[in-house]
């Protein structure tokens, strides 16, 4: 009984395993956050390993993970695409100006429909998608420098060679 309790306390019920791992990433076509930049099409990313980071200007933990994302973006190992989830354009733009823009492209998902396609239930969430368009990793919660170093970089390198 005590063992069960111990295991139970260690589990994180907020982290729900995604059924999308190993599956094809949903196709999304969305306007960009910045006006007049045309559409973002996930199909254009085929052949590249890329990172999709789901964020919102109203999301506190997104601010916490921001330095790690800027670092990931600076290393330029893979395109980092932002999915701006359930947000207002003005707020998003101001947020990017304020804290810096780590994204190669920011797709604007104002009503959260693309978020539903990706099974997003809390922001921030981060996906790594391989050259064939398969989802290889999903992280829920803020990305840290350690996660970038220990999880994202090795995985991106491995997928790049594969």
């Amino acid at each position, binding site marked *: 009984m005590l063992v069960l309790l111990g295991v139970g306390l260690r589990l994180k*019920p*907020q982290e*729900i*395993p*995604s*059924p*999308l791992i190993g599956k094809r990433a949903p196709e999304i076509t969305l306007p960009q956050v910045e006006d007049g930049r045309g559409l973002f099409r996930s199909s254009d990313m085929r052949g590249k390993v890329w990172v999709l980071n789901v964020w919102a200007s109203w999301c506190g933990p997104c601010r916490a993970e921001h330095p790690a994302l800027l670092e990931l973006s600076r290393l330029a190992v893979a395109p980092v695409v932002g999915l701006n989830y*359930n947000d207002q354009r003005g707020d998003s733009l101001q947020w990017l100006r304020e804290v810096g823009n780590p994204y190669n492209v920011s797709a604007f998902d104002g*009503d*959260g*429909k693309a*978020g*539903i*396609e*990706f*099974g997003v*239930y*809390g922001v921030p969430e981060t996906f790594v998608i391989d050259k064939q368009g398969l989802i290889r990793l999903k992280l829920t919660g803020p990305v840290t420098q350690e996660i970038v170093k220990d999880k994202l970089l090795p995985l991106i390198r491995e997928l790049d060679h594969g």
Partner: protein
Amino acid sequence: MVKRWWLLLLLFFAAAASAAQDAAQLERRVNHVAEQLRCLVCQNQSIADSHAQLALDLKREARLQLSQGRSEQEVIDFMVQRYGDFVLYRPPFKAITMVLWLGPFVVLAAGSTALLYNLRRRELREDALEEV
């Protein structure tokens, strides 16, 4: 002439009533689906009971799909494909959820066996004491 007007008015009300009935029926189906789906940000509520943004979004998606003629099961399958079994308020009976469903009965059986065993032993010991 007047009669014709009455007829038109009647038709209008009939159409309005039928539209209202359709809307009410759709809402009932939306709620029926929503009651079976877990709100993933509040976990112990169904999305029918929750006012979290995600719950509202999922309800809106369910309403849209039902109004497009999808069945309730199709909408639920859509959610499970994206959010996993966890989105079901009532977990399905599968190998991986077996412990969840059968665990309590196993614990109950083990507990009652232990209890019976101990009672029997105590009885034997008391019998032995009486004999002395």
